[in-house]
């Protein structure tokens, strides 16, 4: 067999010839048994080489592919984009919202520009507010010109009972504007339940400032207010309003005994029961 014919058979087996040459070579191979055997040998060789290619790892880079990649994308490392990268945004928003709410209740009086403010300057005797850093006239004019209304609730006087829902509970910070009661210059008199802020400002430490903490809702009976005892809301009561425990007094033992009408069989006396709370107990007198 001629060497050229053998090379043509090898190219046919590997598919490297055109269609006309392939038909011609196939006809020649069918007529020559030796050529047919040689063609089959080259076909088996091709199949064996193909099976060798299957054993090469898929991620193995050839020099050409590596070169092409370097020239195209450079040597910089490219990480795949995170699948859930958008999750940090709502999480961060939640943290910010929580921090805002948590810090809001702890803003000191000096910085509480948006919080409720206790002002009762109708008598013109509002003292300077330590901690705020401004004096009464400045406060008065500021409120008259630009009253702080962020948390001031307009209510009827009779609804001031909601100022302090329960002893021992946290006080509300809402204030109350009493539209019926206005000073001569037309500015509204603010009566507030924000005892917390007043306390922080040191305004309710003494009896002399008790007028600034007037919780009386009866504005129409001005005379009655004026006749109100000066110590009707003493420090002890103010502390109780703020939720702080009132100082223990000999006349206010927290322990109460309920004495029933029936006789206890074990002791022969009326049955007694100690109670800690008397909220629902009706007493006569």
């Amino acid at each position, binding site marked *: 067999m001629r060497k050229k014919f053998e090379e043509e058979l090898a190219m046919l087996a590997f598919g490297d010839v055109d269609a006309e040459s392939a038909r011609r070579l196939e006809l020649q191979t069918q007529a020559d048994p030796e050529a047919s055997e040689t063609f089959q040998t080259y076909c088996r060789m091709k199949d064996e080489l193909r099976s060798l290619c299957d054993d090469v790892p898929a991620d193995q880079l050839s020099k050409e592919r590596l070169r092409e990649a370097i020239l195209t994308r450079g040597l910089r490392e490219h990480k795949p984009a995170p699948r859930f990268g958008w999750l940090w945004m709502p999480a961060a928003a939640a943290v910010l919202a929580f921090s805002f709410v948590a810090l809001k209740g702890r803003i000191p009086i000096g910085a509480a520009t948006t919080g409720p403010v206790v002002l009762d300057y109708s008598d013109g005797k509002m003292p300077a507010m330590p901690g705020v850093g401004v004096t009464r006239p400045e406060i008065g004019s500021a409120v008259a010109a630009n009253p702080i209304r962020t948390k001031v609730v307009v209510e009827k006087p009779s609804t001031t009972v909601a100022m302090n829902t329960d*002893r021992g509970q946290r006080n509300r910070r809402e204030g109350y504007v009493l539209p019926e009661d206005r000073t001569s210059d037309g500015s509204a008199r603010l009566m507030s339940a924000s005892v917390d802020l007043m306390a922080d400002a040191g305004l309710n430490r003494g009896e002399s400032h008790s007028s600034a903490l007037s919780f009386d809702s009866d504005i129409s009976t001005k005379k009655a*207010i004026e006749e109100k005892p000066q110590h009707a809301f003493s420090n002890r009561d103010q502390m109780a309003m703020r939720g702080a425990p009132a100082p223990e007094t000999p006349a206010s033992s927290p322990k109460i005994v309920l*004495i029933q009408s029936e006789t206890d069989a074990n002791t*022969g006396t009326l049955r*007694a029961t100690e109670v800690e709370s008397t909220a629902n107990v*009706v007493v006569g007198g």
Partner: protein
Amino acid sequence: MLWSAASLILTVACADLTDLTERELRAWKKVEPSVIYLMDGQRVRGSAALISREGLFITHATSVTGKAPTGRKSDGSSIKLQWVSMDDPTQFVLLKAEDWSSGAEVVSISTTKSEREGLLALTPTGPARAERAKDIYGIVNPSKRMMPMTEVFLENNLPTMGGSLLINMDGKLVGALNAALGLSPSQNVQRNRSNELVGGGTKAVSPIVNNQYGPGILGSAYTIGPKVLNRVIEGFLSPDHVVKHPAIGIFCRDATPQGALIDSVTKGSPAEKAGLMKGDVITTINNDAVRDQMDFARLMADQDVGDTLKIWITRNGLRQLVSVVVGS
């Protein structure tokens, strides 16, 4: 009759007086001539203390059986008694002895309020050691009046200790056992002085007794305060033998956020005459702040009949000042 006297003498004589200290014995001997035992058939039911040389005795309602009880002195002699009056809030009863001719001194009333004071409870089985614990307030049903009371610890939980008179170490009357805390089943176990189980309790309960020290079992009882006791005795010694506790005739409950909310007004009472109405909230009484109904009751307990109260109330959002004369 003879058997009754003998049982009394035996009861008193067999009482473990030897358990008492010398000081306690002196106190008991000092007050003994002024004390009679109230009988219920053949057994002692309670004791009564002489408060007037005319034969007026004070005792507690639980110590009396019927309107004509029989009493006996410590020597066994019999006394016929008549029920005169009773003070409902305190359950004290005034008895009058028929043909009383004794040189016994009337008992003195203690006015001290020292804590940890040693006391003796004159139980039907003899004097029992007790101790003043502390002053508290009690709401007495069904009158719902709040009374200043004294908590008393005593080493006795016999079923018949109700109404036992209390004396201090000076032989002065302190009060009577008006009420007692209910004992738990384990506390109801009774033991003798050898710490053997003698009665009470249930077998299912562990025989371990809580709060036990000394020869007896610790019990908590209550007696009215000295001020109220004096008021009761003054009332009993008055011509009409009626005790007058200060009241204006209202019932209160807690108001929101503070104050005493009038729940009801008794018809014809001083409060109704003064114009107080249901729904009014009392905020101040005589310049004292009223934070809740307990403040109201405490302030009322400190008043005297005939006093005039300046009461600030809130009605429909308006504050009003009302003057009320304290009645009874």
